[in-house]
């Protein structure tokens, strides 16, 4: 799946996007976040406070309990500040 990051989530993780194949038992966004956080300090720091994390799957806002699929584009970013 494709993961994309914005704002300080991108800065902490250190990349704008990446292709990753999480293990089979990673079924929800929540699972994915826990798995990512275990991959290194940058990820751990980005996901340290989940109240500051917003999620979109295929460009649609979702909650942490959303199911993920192999061909999804999953985005993580802080609360938006448009306008």
């Amino acid at each position, binding site marked *: 799946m494709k993961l*994309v990051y*914005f*704002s*300080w989530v991108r800065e902490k993780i250190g990349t704008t996007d990446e292709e990753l194949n999480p293990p089979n038992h990673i079924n929800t966004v929540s699972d994915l976040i826990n798995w990512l956080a275990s991959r290194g300090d940058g990820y751990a720091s980005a996901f340290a406070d989940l109240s500051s994390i917003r999620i*979109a799957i295929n*460009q649609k*806002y979702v909650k942490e309990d959303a199911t993920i699929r192999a061909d999804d*584009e999953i*985005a993580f*970013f*802080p*609360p*938006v*500040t*448009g*306008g």
Partner: protein
Amino acid sequence: MAVRIQLENFQIGAELNAITNGRHNIGGLCSFVGLVREMAGNENITSMTLEHYPSMTEKAIMEIEAEAQNRWPLEATLIIHRYGKLKPGDQIVLVAAASSHREAAFKACNFLIDWLKTKAPFWKLEESFKGSRWVNPRGTDDEAAARWD
């Protein structure tokens, strides 16, 4: 019924005139322009960089626009949002709503900017001589957006 996400500046007059030109059923046109302020808290900012999520931004804003169209009888709407590096005094966003009656135009315009603030995937980085920092959403923005829930 138009959404544009662009690096370039926009001309308010030309944009608003294009909405009303030749239309004789518009009684009120409400618009809002957001600009970069020099002061952020107590700090002088030198520039502001707007990051966005290109493949999502237009879609998200079109949904907000469609919601406004559902809620009020609108003759036209326009949303132009810039991204990239801007300087104090630069225009960031133009939102406009036209209706046969002014109340609908006002409410829709206000709704559009409130929801843009909390739902459009943009992030602002304020740059000053002391460094740069990501703008946190204001609580009042959430409250303003929640009025329309």
